[in-house]
């Protein structure tokens, strides 16, 4: 591979950090979901890069599984988001407090 692994990993970390920041610091549910997606994809990037460098198909297989899980999770999350919108007329996560300890 022409691109050194370290660069790809750095990119992956950067994207992961962006995704984490997005998930942590946004109030709207949609953006939290987006952040989670970005994090998942960042992890996938790292896996694929490793697969390319060490010529091991397992990384790519892992990424495919990851994509499937991400898709399922997005499906559920979006339906929750729609539910939340219908109930509270706002995408604000702060509204969901009923699961108290």
């Amino acid at each position, binding site marked *: 591979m022409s691109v050194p692994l370290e660069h790809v990993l750095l990119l992956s970390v950067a994207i992961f950090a962006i995704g984490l920041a997005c998930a942590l610091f946004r109030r709207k549910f949609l953006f939290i979901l987006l952040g989670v997606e970005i994090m998942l994809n960042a992890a996938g990037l790292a896996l694929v890069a490793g697969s390319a460098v060490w010529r091991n198909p397992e990384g790519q297989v892992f990424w495919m599984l990851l994509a499937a899980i991400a898709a399922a999770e997005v499906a559920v999350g979006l339906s929750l988001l729609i539910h939340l919108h219908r109930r509270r007329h706002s995408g604000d996560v702060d509204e969901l*407090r009923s699961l108290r300890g």
Partner: protein
Amino acid sequence: MDWVLALIPLLPLLGSLAIVLGGRRLPAAAPGIIATVSVAASAAVALLLLPHAAGEGIRSRLFVWLSSEGFAAPFGLVLDPLSAPMAAMVTVVSALIHLYAAGYMREDPGRVRFFALFNLFVFAMLIIVLADNLALLFLGWEGVGFCSYALIGFWFREPKNAAAGQKAFLVTRVGDVFLLVAVLWLLSRLGTTDIVAINAAAPSLPAAGATAVGVLLLLGAAGKSAQLPLMTWLPDAMAGPTPVSALIHAATMVTAGAYLLCRLNPLLSQSPAAAAAVAAVGALTALYAALCALFQREIKRVLAYSTMSQVGYMLLAAGAGAVGASLFHLIVHAFFKALLFMAAGVIIHRFGGENDITRMGGLRREQRALFYLFVAGALCLAGAPLTGGFFSKDAILLSVLERGGGFYRLLFGVAIATALITAVYTFRLLYLVFLGERRSPPPAHPHAIGRSMMVPLWPLAALGLLGGLGNLPGGGWLDGWLAPVAQPPPPASHAAEWALAAAAALMVLAGWALAHRRYRGAAAAAETGLARAFRLGLFADEVVRAALVRPFHALARFSRDWVDDRIIDGGLRGAARGFGGIGAWLSRLANGSLLRYRTALGLGLLGLLAFAVAVVWRP
């Protein structure tokens, strides 16, 4: 043969059982008859066995009651020269009082209970008298305590009767504690509770130990015998039916203390200090009680304090080492005091339930026989010359005088003064009740005095008056009989004896004269402050209440409300609240806010990553 001895206490016990089991199904007079017959049978056995009790006496071991390592308490009885006359007196006097009670309680709805308890009491008292070891004695000791409690509070619907019984039980139990400690100490020192063995081993005890044991025994005896400082229960105990007062508080239970000190006299005499303490307590109580008796208004209370005083004389003699004199007075006193109490019961009946002697009077005209009987008893009590009471009291005074030493001479003075006061209050009683004019109207429906109530009084009067023959001074029969178990009295010069007799007779006459002047025909004058103080027993009750009862109540309440609830439970509740607080604080993390959960998730994730990196980092 020795099982016959066991019949003496067991016959009353069987009587009690029969009464309890028969219960209501028995005809009305049955409980009284069963009770009287069983005690009379016991008296017959006691009298029959009397000759066999000389010297070593008879012993009977039925079974082992309690035992453990280094300790055994058999159910063992011994009839020796000391216990035999005592047992005979207890059974004979009890039988006579039972006869009286059969009439007195004839119509009481609780007579089944009464006679069952009455017989049970006689059983317990005989155990005290006949027990050959202190553990079994303690069984009888507590037994009479319980029976006394139940019989004093017999008419239980009236709270003050039950309260009087309660007081009696509690005060005597304080004494019992001291007695039990003494028994435990003797057991740990000598390895036995057998009385004969203890008396024999007494010289081997260290001086301090002997004194301690002696004082403990004194306190134990003081409880049962209502001596200072455990005497506050006796006057109130008059709340019980008159037969109870006659039996328990004149002839038997209150004499148990004196009897115990006589029984253990070899032990007691090992410590001159303890013996002196016994004598001092006896003398002081005699004086105190006599003064209180002088100012009492209720007839039975006069007799109660009188008993307290006379038992003081018995203790005085025991302390001076004169077992013979003490026992002699004990027996004779039982005769005439029981007589006086039973007569008092009749008197109260005659005045329609009136107790107050200042409201009596003139009974001599109505009840000649009763008057003569009462005079007999009174003369014995006052110690009029040639009565049984005279000889018995004289024997005590002589032995105290002969004991020697300034201390005992002082006690002698106290005893002589008390004799004077005794004569005064006795004749006061006589005058106020029988002579002069009737101060209260006769009852509308005079209660017929059953024949059985008057019959027992005659033999008691006879025994009281003639009892002096039992132990005439200068080598009496009783002293000789007791020789195997008690020190003989020191020989006194004839001159001293006659002088003492004259002095005693003088006291009686002086007392009579004083009473005659003050109380003949005169109604009671207004009560002075001092008189009131003595009537209330020098406020002994109030002292006990303030010093012991109220602090105990306060302490109990304090334990309940403060220590248990606030401190212990409060501490635990505080701990629980603390845990709850921590939990509440922690649960703020789970407040339902998804945003907070997310933050935590993120931080945790970063932390894990940092940790993973730190582990694999190889700079």
